[in-house]
């Protein structure tokens, strides 16, 4: 439970500085120095999430700007070196692929050289091979989460990248190897805060709850953009305090964060068990700091590692066409139905494509593109609409041929019964915008493991001057 580095009973509290919710998100230049003044024992920062969608895992690319990541790391690494405290970065490169870990490692190396410091850096890789997982699936060690998706070896093979979400154990083990900087592949957000504190022997209830509250930096404060938070974890609970002096944590702002991006507001599953905050109390210590007690952690009978996998879903080409004509807008449903009917009739014969081998979406921005059938104001005529035509096909050339075939209709389709051909407002030339490959999340499963580290691999080395 407490990782491989078990400290003596002397450790009474651990302070973790989480400067920002996402590495590369930026924070005030004073955040790190002020966090260290507050007594930070470790700096933890999340480098990723699934929140930006399947492209980043599917292609193993980062959503953050490289220069922004370098800027944040410069401040973090310089401060950590001065204070002699370790740095933990999780879910490197947005999706926590091996390429993502190496990408952040490259930036850390550059920044270290620039600062004239050397660092002992551990890379903890989280990517999984489809053939290894197929064997685990065969052995009955992979189970679906709710909502359950079907899984077989062929689907695993279709994934361009698969990662496992590590808990605190591989990170704590890397710290125990003397790493000053741990660059973790995909990890639970909470594990980044938890790893050091659990390794110091603090109890899991307060540690995991502190991890959840701190995971998004300043998001649990009254001014989310002001910089991060420091959590002080002890044997009975934890205290959370914003780094920025003008920002505040209130019992409401802290308790509400437990709800954030969480399907269940009280329970959070980690690889080693479940955090239960139902009986937690939130008390204002003053107008800036909140004390949390009563959090529990229930160890799981079976240690599990959650998987994330992205597969290629096709290639897309889109066209954006603006409609401002009040006549057309007053009969928009009719116009769209006629357009769709025309495309359905002309595509198979002209392009030789079978129904089901391609997909056409017509989104009506300004009308109901965002909510679709759930749009409550769909009976009102809009003032202006952006028709976003999206063709999805098995390859880029076909998607673009679909768009080119639709182009004249998107430009000139008249209202049913009208003789004159209108011309709508295309955005740019060429009208066709190739989006490239699109991916989809296809795994919502966990792997039973006996050793919490068995799916992860660690390499340790020196970087910098």
């Amino acid at each position, binding site marked *: 439970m407490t990782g491989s580095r078990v400290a003596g009973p002397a450790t009474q509290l651990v302070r973790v500085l989480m400067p920002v919710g996402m590495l590369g998100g930026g924070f005030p230049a004073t955040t790190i120095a002020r966090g260290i003044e507050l007594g930070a024992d470790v700096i933890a920062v999340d480098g990723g999430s699934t*929140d930006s969608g399947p492209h980043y895992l599917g292609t193993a690319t980062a959503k953050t700007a490289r220069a922004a990541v370098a800027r944040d790391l410069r401040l973090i690494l310089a401060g950590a070196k001065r204070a002699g405290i370790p740095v933990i970065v999780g879910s490197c490169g947005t999706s926590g692929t091996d390429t993502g870990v190496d990408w952040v490692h490259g930036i850390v190396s550059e920044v270290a050289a620039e600062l004239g410091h050397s660092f002992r850096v551990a890379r903890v890789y989280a990517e999984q091979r489809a053939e290894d997982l197929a064997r685990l699936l065969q052995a009955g060690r992979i189970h679906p989460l709710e909502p359950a998706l079907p899984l077989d070896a062929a689907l695993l093979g279709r994934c361009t990248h698969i990662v496992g979400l590590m808990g605190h154990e591989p990170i704590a083990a890397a710290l125990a190897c003397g790493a000053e900087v741990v660059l973790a592949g995909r990890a639970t957000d909470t594990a980044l805060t938890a790893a050091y504190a659990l390794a110091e022997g603090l109890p899991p209830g307060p540690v995991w709850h502190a991890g959840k509250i701190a995971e998004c930096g300043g998001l649990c404060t009254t001014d989310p953009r002001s910089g991060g938070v420091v959590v002080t974890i002890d044997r009975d609970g934890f205290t959370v305090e914003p780094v920025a002096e003008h920002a505040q944590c209130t019992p409401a702002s802290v308790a509400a964060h437990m709800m954030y991006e969480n399907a*269940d507001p009280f329970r959070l599953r980690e690889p080693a068990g479940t955090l239960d905050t139902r009986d937690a109390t939130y008390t204002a210590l003053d107008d800036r700091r909140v004390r949390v007690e009563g959090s529990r952690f229930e160890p799981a009978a079976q240690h599990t590692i959650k998987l994330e996998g992205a597969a290629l879903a096709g290639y897309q080409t889109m066209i954006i066409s603006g409609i401002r004509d009040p006549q057309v807008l007053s009969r928009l449903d009719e116009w769209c139905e006629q357009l769709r009917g025309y495309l359905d009739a002309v595509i198979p014969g002209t392009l030789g494509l079978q129904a089901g081998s391609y997909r056409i979406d017509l989104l009506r921005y300004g009308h109901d593109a965002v909510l679709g059938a759930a749009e409550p104001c769909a009976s009102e005529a809009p003032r202006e609409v952006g028709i976003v035509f999206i063709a999805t096909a098995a390859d880029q050339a076909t998607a673009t041929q679909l768009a080119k075939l639709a182009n004249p209709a998107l430009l000139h389709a008249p209202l049913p019964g009208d003789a004159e051909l209108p011309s709508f407002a295309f955005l740019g030339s060429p009208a066709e915008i190739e989006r490239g490959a699109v991916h989809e999340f296809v795994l919502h499963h966990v792997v039973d493991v006996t050793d919490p580290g068995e799916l992860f691999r660690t390499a340790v080395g020196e970087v910098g001057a």
Partner: protein
Amino acid sequence: MTTLGALASHVRSKNAGPFWLTIDVFFADDIAYNRASHSLTDPAAIGARYAVRADQVRIHLLPRLLAIKVSMPRSVVQGCVGDRDMHAGQQFVALLGLPLPDGDPE
């Protein structure tokens, strides 16, 4: 009769991972919270707005926060072809017009 949007002080929605949509509804006072918590009890009425089955809709009451959380599987997985809202950040709007009958507060 009122609507959820009229009774709430703040409503937000977000992904809870790629497969779940979660909607947080906050109320300004006990009166509004109590009224909503007594009438926002029909998972079928909520699920119908998102093409989700009633038995998949979870309603969590948080009286200490004067909040109600509603979670359900996404009807389209995040980022799949056909998804309209990558972060599900605008999906709360479909719930604002939910009619809340005058409940029977104890």
